[in-house]
């Protein structure tokens, strides 16, 4: 696995935790432990996303584009088999 994919999978792990904790919090909105875990995952994910996007380009279109080139269309897309 290359460096890009390694970093991407770390982001995916934190983001998945947020999805799962988010569902739990929907039915337990006052659970302090879950809220605290969600906050930790959010902060870790944000940090890694910034790192990733600086190095490899946008994960999401809500990204300040380079004034000369629209990197969004660059490969790889998520469904592609790893090279």
């Amino acid at each position, binding site marked *: 696995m290359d460096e890009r994919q390694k970093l*991407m*999978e770390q*982001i*995916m792990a934190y*983001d*998945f935790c947020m*999805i*799962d904790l*988010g*569902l*739990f919090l*929907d*039915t*337990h*909105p006052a659970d302090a432990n879950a809220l605290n875990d969600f906050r930790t995952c959010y902060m870790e994910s944000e940090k890694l996303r910034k790192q990733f996007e600086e190095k490899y380009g*946008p*994960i*999401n*279109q*809500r990204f300040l584009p380079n004034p000369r080139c629209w990197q969004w269309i660059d490969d790889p*897309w*998520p*469904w592609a*088999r*790893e090279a």
Partner: protein
Amino acid sequence: MWYYDKKLEYPINIKKCDPRMAKFIISQYGGPDGELAASLRYLSQRFHMPTKETRAILNDIGTEELAHLEMVGTMVHQLTKGVPADIMEKAGLGDFYTDHDNAVYPISASGVPFTAAYIQSKGDVIADLVEDLAAEQKARATYENLIRLADDPDVKDPLRFLREREVVHFQRFGEALRQVQELMGSKKYY
């Protein structure tokens, strides 16, 4: 509305083509207990949910199902990419190949195209949440059948992840149903 994140919910990297397995897995794309049906069901039902918790859970599980639809489509794509016509035919995909080449198309394992008749949005909150509970169990059972049919760990691993999510969703829908039942038992509801 939604924004797209250029990533999957869970990693998928299938190195070996296997059109036979693709023919089975595609049922979770466009089949009766598949992810397209799931997402449409919850995202349609969310409009008439009576509490903030139930509105949120339908919205958010519906959204996660779209990510699962993408995962299942990715598996089918990676299992069939570049597979020639004769191999597709030997795997039982000759009919599919005729109409769809190596594309991903929402269809069940037995070849029935997707239909909204797979889902209900009844407007009755109890009826809808009970359908949602059953839908999660049916999807779990389908993933268990697929895991038994698969031999490649690259295929089994994401199938196990998807199976586990059905169990979690079932749990959350159960909590939502209990909340609505308690509300209806109280005097405020009519």
